[in-house]
């Protein structure tokens, strides 16, 4: 479905991605872990064509999207839904207008259909009846749910989640993790989840890839990684900092 080949990206003198290779199969749920500031969000932005790489390729269904212009990319992105780290709701619009955004812009859906699908999407994320509220009135967890509703209402094939649980308390985090799993199973979408939360990784992931120093350092099942004896991996999953290394 998505294949990344030797992806490189540098910002100033900082080589953020240094030859990432990654293959994502249709229908799988992949978790990408890695340190804060390690380039996970940057990698995700390449996968959906929000950023252009310095070199390397991103193939979506066999087609290289790294050279497409913005208008060509818009059509490709119709297959994708993305939940941003900050939810990125449009704060001038109501919850309903946010969720209905794509359908409204497409101009071929009658208002009753839009209203019904918005209600369904809100039902799916367990937030029924908040159509008329403004994003500023919502808590962090609620915003993420609305952001997810906005990303799944147009039935994408792949949903990307950028740190869905960061900044939420453990109980809310757990409910978001379960929501991610349920969305994946019910809508039969491919899920790609970025996180540095080990509990999320174990709940959500069937396969885990670890991004380290700009490359995919290792990948495997969550239990493989938890049991790993590799020093880099085991330090990360157990959350032990290395005195010899810079930590950010």
């Amino acid at each position: 479905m998505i294949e990344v080949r030797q992806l490189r990206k540098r910002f100033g003198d900082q080589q953020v991605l240094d030859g990432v290779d990654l293959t994502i199969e249709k229908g799988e749920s992949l978790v990408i872990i890695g340190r804060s500031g390690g380039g996970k969000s940057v990698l995700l932005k390449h996968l959906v064509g929000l950023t252009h790489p310095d070199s390397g390729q991103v193939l979506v269904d066999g087609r290289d999207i790294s050279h497409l212009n913005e208008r060509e990319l818009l059509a490709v992105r119709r297959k994708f839904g993305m939940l941003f780290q900050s939810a990125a709701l449009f704060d001038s619009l109501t919850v309903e207008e946010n969720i209905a955004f794509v359908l409204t812009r497409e101009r071929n859906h009658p208002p009753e259909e839009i209203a019904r699908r918005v209600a369904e999407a809100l039902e799916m994320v367990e937030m029924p009846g908040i159509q008329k509220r403004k994003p500023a009135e919502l808590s962090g967890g609620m915003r993420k749910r609305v952001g997810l509703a906005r990303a799944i209402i147009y039935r994408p094939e792949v949903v990307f989640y950028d740190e869905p649980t960061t900044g939420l308390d453990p109980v809310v985090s757990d409910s978001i993790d379960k929501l991610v799993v349920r969305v994946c199973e019910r809508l039969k979408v491919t899920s790609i989840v970025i996180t540095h939360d080990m509990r999320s990784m174990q709940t959500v992931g069937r396969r885990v890839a670890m991004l380290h120093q700009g490359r995919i350092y290792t990948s495997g099942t969550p239990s493989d990684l938890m049991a790993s004896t590799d020093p880099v991996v085991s330090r990360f999953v157990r959350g032990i900092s290395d005195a010899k290394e810079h930590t950010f």
Partner: protein
Amino acid sequence: MTKLPAKVIQSVLAGLGRFSLMVAEVVRSLTTQRLSGHDLMNQLYFIGVKSQTVVLVTGAFTGMVLCAQTYFQFHKVKMDTATLAVVSVSMCGELGPVLTALMVAGRVGAAMAAELGTMRVTEQIDALRTLATHPIDYLVVPRVVATMIAVPLLTAESIAVGILAAYLVGVHLLQIDPGYSLVNMQRFTDHRDVLMGFIKSFIFGGIIATTGCYKGMHCGQGAEGVGHATTEAVVYASIAILMSNFFLTLLLTRLLALT
């Protein structure tokens, strides 16, 4: 030491390049995409209707001071009744369009840069792009079109109010003869002055909106970035308006003389 100017020139050229690409994309969007009437109306309301107070006050006081100052000079040479003619010609061709554009740049250009800049730093622009919407189509085009419609209308209002205020000051305060003044005013103001003001304000509208949107769309990180973008949008738009005004006056006077 030779590195520094080279870097500055490079970044200026890169900025101009990105600006031109944005303008080209706006033109492409206008010719290929449908503009949403709802978005356009919202912007027209904010830019046009809500800017009226500022623009009317500016126009009125400019007309008044222009009238008083002109009268004080003309009175010395007994040309009192030419006062309103001077006011009307300068309001139509120069002061109306320029002052209106400067006021709108301060109000609307700044707001555009701040709003789009905030959307950029909070990832809302990236979110738009993942929702299969081109930011130019959704954010920039309605603002540019609305400003290019609103600024000429606001300018017309400002000119009308300025002349009216000048008339009241001239006739009631300075005791100029109303009949002769109006005849002179109509004799010396012709359609070229009005047309010049109209064309200028249309171009100024374009400058304000494209500068404001460009600065917002390309703003730096965080609150600081948004602050910078807002200031620069106003400063650059104002300078561009004042500079282009000079060249437009030269160019349009030649062109309109042919009509």
